[in-house]
Every structure is written in structure tokens, then in C-alpha cells.
């Protein structure tokens, strides 16, 4: 479904991705973990074609998106739903309009059908009655839930979650994780999730990939990662200050 092959990316001569390889199967839910600033969001942006690699290939359902542009790339993007780090809700639109936006712009559904879908999505994320609020009038956790509803409203084949729980309290973190699991079960999408929530994330995803130093140092099931002997993975999941990862580096 998604295959990342040897991708490299530098910003102002600083190499962020240095030969990433990752394969995600159809309907699989995979988390990318790693230190802040190690390039997890950059990797996600490559997968949806918001950034293009300096080297390497990205295959989405067998199509190499690094060779595409314009309408062809948009055709691939239509398979995606993306939940951005800060939600990326449109400030000038209400919660209802934000969720309805992709349907209004990308489908030929009637107003009534759109309304039904949006109300159902609001119900799913526990925000019934908040449709008329503007993003500035709701909390951070609510914004992420609205962003989740917007990302899923077109029932995409692939969903990318960029730190869906960062900055939220533990109860909301758990409710977001439950929402992701429920929607994954309901819609059957292929998901890639960037997260710092350890150990909670082990209960949510099928596999975990650890990104460090611009490469994927280990990929495995949650059990394999928990029992990993790799010193980088061990240090990261235990949160230890001693080890190969420099805490403030």
C-alpha cells in the first residue's frame, strides 16, 4: 500500500532523512516514534506529497509519487486524509463548515447528504452541538477531534496522523486513541501515526517504526519493540537519559 524506498531529504545542508525504508501493508496501522525534531513529520509530509525527497521513491498503491506533479499528484492525494499537528482547521470556518469542506469541494453530494455525514462525524468524535463554534472558541482537544472528523469525512483509504495527542491531558489522549482505533475498525483505512505517547501507543497500532538519525532503526510489532535489544529503541521507550540518544542534542 505505502512503500518508502531510500528517501533522503536535506534542509539548508542539514540532512533530516538519510535513506528511509518503510513498508506499510493495506489496512495496517503503524506508528512512527522518535525524538522530537528527528524528521517524523517530514516523513509524513513526503508520503502525502507535500514535500518531495532529494533522493528515493515513495510508492502509493504501486504509483511512484516522486515522479508525479499537478493533477496526477492530486489524484493520489485524494486517497488521503491528514490530521495535522495543530489541527490545521480553517479559522474562518465553523466546526461544521470545516468538516463539510472536503465534501463540498470534492464530492457532488447534496446539502442534505453532507449534513447527515457531518452530523454523524460530529457524533462519532463526541462533538454534537459544537458545529456552530469557530476553531478559536474550542479547546485543543476538541480541535484535534474536529481535525480527525475532517480527515475521515471522505472515508479515505490512507490516513496520516501527525501527533494527534500532543499537548492533551491523559484522559483526552486515551479518548483520541480510542477514536483512532474505532474509526480504523469502522473505515478500514491504512494508517500512519506519529506519536510520543509511550506506552499508550502500543495498545493502538499494529506495528511501530523507530526513526533516529534520519533512518528507521527498527520496525516491528508492538511486542517486538517492547522487547527490543536495540539500545536506541530501549532508551527511547524507557525514557532513560543514559544511552546513545542525546537528550538535548
Amino acid at each position, binding site marked *: 500500500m505505502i512503500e518508502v524506498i531510500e528517501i533522503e531529504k536535506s534542509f539548508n545542508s542539514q540532512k533530516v532523512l538519510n535513506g528511509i525504508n518503510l513498508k506499510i501493508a493495506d489496512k495496517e496501522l503503524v506508528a512512527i516514534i522518535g525524538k522530537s525534531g528527528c524528521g517524523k513529520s517530514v516523513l509524513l509530509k513526503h508520503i*502525502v506529497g507535500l514535500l518531495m525527497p532529494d533522493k528515493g521513491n515513495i510508492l502509493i498503491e504501486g504509483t511512484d509519487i516522486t515522479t508525479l506533479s499537478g493533477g496526477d499528484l492530486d*489524484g493520489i492525494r485524494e486517497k488521503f486524509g491528514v490530521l*495535522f499537528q495543530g489541527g*490545521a482547521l480553517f479559522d474562518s470556518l465553523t466546526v461544521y463548515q470545516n468538516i463539510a*469542506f472536503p465534501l463540498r469541494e*470534492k464530492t457532488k453530494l447534496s446539502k442534505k447528504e453532507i449534513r447527515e455525514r457531518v452530523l454523524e462525524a460530529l457524533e462519532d468524535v463526541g462533538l454534537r452541538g459544537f458545529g456552530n463554534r469557530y476553531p478559536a472558541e474550542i479547546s485543543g482537544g476538541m480541535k484535534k477531534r474536529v481535525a480527525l472528523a475532517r480527515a475521515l469525512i471522505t472515508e479515505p483509504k490512507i490516513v496520516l496522523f501527525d501527533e494527534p495527542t500532543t499537548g492533551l491531558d491523559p484522559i483526552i489522549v486515551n479518548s483520541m486513541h480510542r477514536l483512532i482505533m474505532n474509526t480504523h475498525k469502522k473505515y478500514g483505512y491504512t494508517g500512519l501515526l506519529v506519536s510520543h505517547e509511550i506506552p499508550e501507543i502500543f495498545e493502538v497500532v499494529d506495528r511501530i517504526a523507530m526513526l533516529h538519525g534520519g533512518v528507521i532503526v527498527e520496525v516491528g510489532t508492538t511486542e517486538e519493540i517492547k522487547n527490543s535489544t536495540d539500545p536506541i529503541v530501549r532508551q527511547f521507550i524507557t525514557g532513560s537519559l543514559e544511552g546513545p540518544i542525546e537528550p538535548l542534542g
Partner: protein
Amino acid sequence: MERFLNTTGSWALSQLSRMGHMLIFLINALYFIIVPPFKFRLLLRQIRFFGNKSLVVILLTGSFAGMVLAFQLYHTLRKFGSEALLGPAVALSLIRELGPVLSALMVTGRAGSALTAEIGIMRITEQIDALVSMALHPMRYLIVPNIVAGIIVFPVLSSIFDLIGIYGGYFVGVKLLGISSGTYFSQMENYIDMTDIRFGFYKSLSFGVIVSWICCYKGFYAKYAAEGVSRATTEAVVLSSVLILVWDYFLSSVLV
């Protein structure tokens, strides 16, 4: 010497590349202006945005510009015994020059800066990325409505500026300095023709493109959080203002 040439050369090349980038941005926007679907609702919103933000400041500056102009011209014209020409002198200065230029500068400061900040915030909060990830082109949704709104609104605001300026001049010339009302307006009809009005219209139309283009461009490529947006806003206002004056000079010499 070699070092100086190297530095100057690389600076010139980077400026050239930046100008090329800006030009490609404009050409891209013009392409989306003519290719459907058109976003009329967004266009109306942006017309309201420009008009709403700028109308009061246009009324204020227009009236005072007309009043100052009348004062200054009255004293100059009196030396030649031509006070009767005050009306056409005020109107011609406003219609051909001051109306388009001053209104464009005012809109740049008021709505242009707000536009850059708004688009810049959309950039740094990933709202533009969100549009792209939905396979929707930000040019169509963010840039085209603003450029078309600029083309529509600038001539209208410039006309309002001219009108209110002429009445500001009337207040000073007729009510304060004692010129007869009939002289003020009747002489105007004799000295102003459609060419002058067209001249001002072309100017404000092109200023509309310049301001909306520069302000959108700077916001669209804003970087590095709040500081980046603030820098983009300053650059947009300064560059738009400079370009308005440079383009004004160019048009004035071409459209004599």
C-alpha cells in the same frame, strides 16, 4: 576586488531568482483566474474584506488630502491670479495622481498588511498544507479571490477617494477661502475629460494587482512562526508601497 564582485554577483543572482519566483507566482495566479471552477463566494468575501477594512481610512485620508491640496493650490494659484482654477486643479491632481496612489498606499497599510498576516498564519498553522493534502489548489482558494478582489476594489476605492477629496477641496476653497461654488465645479467640467478619468482608472487597476499580488506572495511564503509572519507583513507593505510609486512613475511617463 574579486570578493566584492563575488558578493555583488551572488546578491544580484539571488534577487533575480526571487523576482522570477514572484513573477511565476503571479502567472500561476492569472492562469487560475481564467480556468474554472470560480469561487464567487470567496471573491465576495475578499471584496468585503478589502472594502470593509479600508473604507473609513479612505474617507478620512481622501477628505484631508483634498483639503490640504486646496489650501496649497489656492496660495500658488493666487500668485498668478488664477484662483478660479482651484476646482479643476484639485480634481485633476486627485483623479490623475493622488487618488490612485494615496488610496493604494492606504489600502496596502490597512487591508494589504492584514491579508499578508492572514495568509501567513494559514501557512504556519499548516492550513495551506491541509488544502493541498485535500487535493485542492491554494491558488484557487486563497490567491485568485484576493487578486480579483484587488482589481475590482482598488478602482472603486480610488473613485471614492477622488470624490471625497474634491468635496474636501470644495469645503476649503468655497467655505473657507471664499471662492464661489459655481466657479469651483463649472471650471472642473471644462478641464477634465474622460482621458484623465481613464488614466486614473488604469493606475488604480494596476495598483490593485500589485498590492494583492505582493501581499499574497509574502504571506504565502511566510516562514518561522510569529516572527516570520511579522517580517512577511512588513516586507509586503514596504515592497507594495515602493512598487506603487515606481509603477506610478512608469505609467505616468507612458500614459501622458
